[in-house]
């Protein structure tokens, strides 16, 4: 029973700290933030591993499906975020641009 209290505390503290951190993300990065959150929602994979190895025969098929889906999120979310963030360049880093004299 003490588990439920510990879990509720984690739920609330994570929500509060997350709220502060997320509110400060500029709209420039909202799409990568969201795809990153897709990856993070794949955290279900840890629950899937636990249920897969402990649950009886009849349940393991469902847990296996969850394992695959959650890993699609983890791998897909992180990689698409990586791809996107690599495209964001500031003026100084854009070496292919010609110098604009008056700048």
């Amino acid at each position, binding site marked *: 029973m003490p*588990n439920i209290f510990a879990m509720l505390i984690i*739920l609330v503290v994570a929500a509060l700290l997350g709220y502060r951190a997320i509110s400060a993300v500029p709209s420039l990065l909202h*799409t990568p933030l969201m795809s990153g959150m897709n990856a993070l*929602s794949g955290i279900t994979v840890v629950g899937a591993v636990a249920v897969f190895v402990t649950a009886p025969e009849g349940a393991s098929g469902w847990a296996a499906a969850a394992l695959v889906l959650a890993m699609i999120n983890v791998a897909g979310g992180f990689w698409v975020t990586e791809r996107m963030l690599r495209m964001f360049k500031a003026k100084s880093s854009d070496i292919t641009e010609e110098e604009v004299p008056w700048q």
Partner: protein
Amino acid sequence: MAVSLVAAVLIVGLFIVGIRLMQSPTSALWGNRLGSTAMLLALIWAFVSTGWADIGLVLVYIGIGTAIGLLLAQSVKMIHMPQTVALLNGFGGAASALVVWAAVIGYAGEDAALVFWGTSGLAVGVGALTFSGSVVAVLKLQGIAFRKPVQFPGYGHIFRATLAAAVIITILNAVMVGSMYGVLVPVLVLLCLLGGFLMTLRIGGADMPIVISLLNSFSGIAAAVAGLAVENFVLVGAGSLVGVAGLVLTRIMCQAMNRSLLAVLTGFTPGAHAQTQGEKEEPEEAAEPKSAALGEADLPGILREAKRVIIVPGYGMAVSHAQDAVRQLTNAFEKNGAEVKFAMHPVAGRMPGHMYVLLAEVGIDYDKLMDLKPINPQFAHADLALIVGACDVVNPAANAAENTPISGMPILNAGEAKNVVVCNLDEKPGYSGVDNTLYHQEHVITVWGDASETVPRLTEMLTSG
């Protein structure tokens, strides 16, 4: 318990640091990498705490999921990011529902507590709702089905009754401590699948950013509640983070449209007073482009003399694949000695921040991209405001007229610039259905037509002088 609590705090803490690094474009890549490292640690911790049981088989399934995920992420184009995120929202919700369902049938015989049955019903329900809602969102965004918002008589009643029935069954399942889970949970899943379907069915066009943010949040809530059900600290903490992130973005999107979440999810009939839309609706095949104003005004002269240029991109730019043309025009302006900035409306695109990614993709520096608040005072000092595929976000009627779908929506004051050039497909109103009064102002030159053809013509005028 103490060890797993410490591990969970450490892993969730790393996720939060990762999000904090996402606050700046220079550190965001490392934030993402820190997040993926923390995820790897979470996986290893899951293996350790289960004693590496069945590790071979577990790794096979993980390998399959990873391969599919990487393939998807590598092949997706940036214009398709909204449906990609929607799809992953759906997978996240489905995965959480499946984990809890597996736990339910696996542990049903053991004397599970009220908390387990309450949270498991909730997790399965929210997961199922997220899944079906996301599937409809993907179909809409991909243009496969339900492209226009769908509504039918009695819609609201059916939607509310579905949700109410789902809530009652969730409570019933908890109170009966799972003694009838074999019937109740499948019925709950069906109701929630229907609920998610109905919820997304009547959302269209520029309301998509809101529904995608909301489903993103739901996928996190499903994970957090699943964590409560299977008593997994990491799952609770990380799910909570995702849930909050989705809610923050939902709120930002609603504020940018001056609409409440409830107003988006309920009461409006498409057509007569369609919902507020951030930008121009996708072009209709039948629309005949015309360029009446072209040639009457000294467009080449205006382009050449403009030294301060602000470009307002809308979803119409993305639909006509004109991003590259806009970049070339930007380069031509800069070569001509002009300073170019981009005015970014928060709801432009089909998901939060979509327009930024589309411009970054064609190599436009992010320090030229300005948010609504800092850019708005600058229009008055601009020689030229160039609107490409945006309508409602620059419509002065949003401030002037009462009782329109866009009344009170913060707009970009493009009309304050000395000259305004509009490169939209046609003069039809944007998604909101409200006539754009900007088009009729004297200093506004309209160039109707596909932006991927009209924008290069502007570039030609500018360079051939």
